């Protein structure tokens, strides 16, 4: 399995899990479908980008940094969307998004096959 594919799958799964933890916040429980979807999409996008980077750059530190960076960025874009009552959950979305992004970046470095050098 190639690295972008690994990133996409890992990102989708971890994103879904991350979104699922929102169930413990009663205030947003009603929005679970949307949260799960955007969280999974966010994770998939981070995973694909990290996978593409991992094809070229073989460095755990680079994978962690790229994953954390893109995880934070996409988490910000999701957090920008307000809840129906106008509340933003920047901290609750961006901090876990940052850590999860780093995790996705790490997994794309360690797993999957990179293309052979010419």
């Amino acid at each position, binding site marked *: 399995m190639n690295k972008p594919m690994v990133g996409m799958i890992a990102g989708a799964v971890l994103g879904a899990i991350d979104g699922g933890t929102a169930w413990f916040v009663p205030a947003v429980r009603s929005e679970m479908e949307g949260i799960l979807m955007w969280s999974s999409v966010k994770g998939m996008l981070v995973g694909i980008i990290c996978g593409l980077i991992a094809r070229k750059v073989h460095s*755990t530190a680079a994978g962690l940094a790229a994953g954390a960076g893109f995880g934070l960025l996409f988490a910000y874009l999701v957090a920008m969307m307000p809840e129906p009552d106008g509340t933003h959950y920047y901290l*609750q979305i961006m*901090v*876990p998004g940052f*850590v999860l992004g780093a*995790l996705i970046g790490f997994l794309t470095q360690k797993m999957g096959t990179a293309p052979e050098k010419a």
Partner: protein
Amino acid sequence: MSFLPDRALDHLRDVTETPDFSDTRYQVEEEIGRGGMGVVYRAWDAQLERRVAVKVMNAGYAINREAKLLAQLEHPGIAPVYDAGSLPDGRCYYAMRLIQGRRLDEFLRAEPALPPRLRLFEKICEAVAFAHNRGVIHCDLKPQNIMVGEFGEVFVVDWGVARAVDGATAPAAGTPPYMAPEQSAGSADARSDVFALGRILRDLMPDPPPRPLAAIAGKASAQEPAARFGDVQQLAADVGRYLDGQPVAAYRDTVPERLARFWRQNQVLLLLLGTYLAVKLFLYFLAPALK
């Protein structure tokens, strides 16, 4: 009979021992080693203009058995034989590559780190396994018979008591404590070399040794041949697994050791997961305060 003074005696001992290479292309420079079967000299090959090692066998060895045996073993870890012949006094000799380096026991005094020592040990095993594959067992493996080159190359030397794996019973040969018990009885096979390698592995280990490594060395140097590793490759493979942080065949990890290995091999992953959980819990409990 008049008295032979010490000076004269030592001189005669020296001149009668020093080989006469005047009819050959070699010019002896100095003695560099002395083994059970002969003496090794550094010499100059005037024909090819290079330095070589020349081993002169003790009197009584009519056939250059060691040279013939070594000539069959072409491996980076075994010094190649260049030439063989007889001296005017009847002693056999053979010329081989001059190894620039240190004996393993000298190397160990200077190299304290365990991983390089174990990688060196793997190279020793490669050379010995090659010989076994060619049907030859060394029978006298010990740190003094292993040379480490300037660039970390390994050479197994002094094959003077080596013999065929399926050879007939032979006179007891070897050096305690590296000599397997069955060698004293005159029977030796590939597992006798495994025994010696186990003892050498013990020499490489720090004190106290890591338990898996001690178990590998213990299994290799078990008194009963059947209790040892079946061959040198299995021994080397287990040492390789230890170097890679994998479980080894000779040792069953305890639960704490398994957990410790899991932690060592997955530190980053476990730290990231732990951080994620901590963040989630932190935010969950602090959520009301953040509003």
